[in-house]
């Protein structure tokens, strides 16, 4: 069974206004469990919009999204959020860590509303940071972290709710080659654990990597080509 099915997804921003524009038009797509898929294309091609719709962050203007067989487009926000936080982990282009609090607090932030006790949350957070070799920085404020460390905090945060799918938008845009390779190595481990990984990227280092199973070429809000690793 496909993990995610997109059926005729169209997303139009500012509909009915002079600045109306169509970010996605009639995109259909299936994503199988396990494996790494990359959406590739120039900026403005609709990669980010597609990821945010796949990740239940935004609703499409038309079309349907099924997550694990469940239709989610017509769900109220609170149910969508519930599905999102148990299914997806997000790594953003700008990382978007909350400044002024420690690395560990950033990592466990997504799990606060779950109602898990802070003590056990912290324990899980430290374990995640430890896996990424960052346990010694757990209590450091995120402003004092290096770029690579911040990147790993963002990865740990994406994993705290034990999602089946990890979504990353241009993850290597602000990283040098070494850090980018580190990042890909971390993703490889996740893939080995059986997680599904979705990237939007136009970095060859990402989409030409041997661990990528599927590359989807996007342009003007459509998927124009697809390449699968054999």
């Amino acid at each position: 069974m496909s993990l995610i099915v997109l059926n005729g997804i169209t997303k139009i921003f500012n509909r009915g206004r002079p600045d109306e524009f169509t970010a996605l038009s009639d995109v259909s797509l299936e994503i199988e469990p396990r494996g790494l898929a990359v959406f590739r294309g120039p900026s403005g091609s609709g990669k980010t919009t597609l990821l945010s719709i796949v990740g239940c962050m935004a609703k499409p203007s038309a079309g349907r999204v099924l997550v694990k067989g469940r239709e989610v487009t017509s769900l109220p926000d609170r149910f969508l959020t519930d599905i999102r936080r148990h299914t997806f982990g997000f790594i953003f282009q700008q990382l978007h860590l909350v400044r002024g609090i420690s690395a560990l607090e950033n990592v466990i932030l997504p799990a606060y509303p779950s109602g898990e006790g802070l003590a056990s949350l912290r324990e899980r957070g430290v374990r995640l940071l430890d896996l990424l070799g960052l346990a010694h920085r757990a209590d450091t404020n995120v402003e004092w972290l290096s770029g690579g460390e911040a990147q790993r905090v963002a990865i740990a945060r994406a994993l705290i709710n034990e999602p089946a799918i990890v979504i990353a938008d241009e993850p290597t845009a602000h990283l040098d080659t070494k850090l980018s390779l580190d990042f890909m190595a971390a993703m490889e481990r996740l893939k080995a654990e059986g997680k599904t990984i979705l990237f939007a990227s136009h970095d060859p280092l990402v989409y030409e990597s041997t661990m990528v199973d599927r590359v989807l070429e996007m342009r003007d809000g459509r998927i124009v080509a697809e390449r699968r690793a054999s």
Partner: protein
Amino acid sequence: MIVSPAVIALMLGSAAVGLLALYASAWGVRILRHWDLRSGSESQLQLEKRTYLVSTLMAWAFAFQVGSLFLFIFTAEDLHRLFVGAMCAAGTLNVNEFGYPTILLKVGNALLAGIWLIVNYTDNRASDYPLIRKKYAFLLVITPLLLAEAVLQGAYFAGLKANVITSCCGSLFGAEAQGPVSSLVGLPAGPMRAALIASLSITFASGLLFRSGRVRAGGLFSVSSLAAFFISIAALVSYISPYIYELPTHHCPFCILQREYSYIGYFFYASLLGGAIPGAAVGVLLPFRGIGCLQGVLPPVLRRLTFASLFLYFLFSLLVVYSISFSALIVEMD
């Protein structure tokens, strides 16, 4: 017009609740007219966001409403010294014709607002807003009542005139305070006790039946829990309060709120309101148990509501038994 800080606070509170409800209703009307869950349009997304606002506004309005109910009683109690013939809040409320309507409306609105919040909570549990039109229509009913309460309360306070020395002789010899309370006082203690025991027993029995799965008992439970609320208040006046005051002739439903009686009245009224609101909400929600997506959601909610109602009525019963058995007063039942 009496301008005491508490009066200003109450007017402010009512104005705030009225404004919140009015604003919520304005969105309620738009939601009623334009709601379309299937549509992914911007305006539908905006409306969906507004439902959060309305929920939040109403939650605060309800909190203020309950607070202002008690503050109102407290104020009436405090002002009684200003009026000849008023021994406590019962007399103050009777100073003009708006007093008792105001407090009745306040109690009614607190009940309605509580029920609304429960309906809203239930609706939000289900995945497709099955009750959205009904709850916003309900909101449009509550709002005018809340506004009417603010107006009545304003009229009540505006109509209060304290006696000052210069006009004392003229006002001295007015009639003694008499209100609806005095008719409750007249209710005989024996039958009142029987009614109280009966209504509470029916509530407990039907509530337990309902919880154990007999859906039909739900309606009876809801009606009896609401009836128990009113019977309990009448019983408080006619039959229980003399035990608390340890005076066979004192029947005031308000004095029990005072420090002298260790504020026991707050526990009485809070447990009664807390018992009646979920009890009544069960009756409101019960007809919707057939709606598709509520089938999974409603039963646990109803069970919890029933439990809450039964628990608080149980607390109330304990308080009553405690007050009567530890009272120095012994009343012969006729």
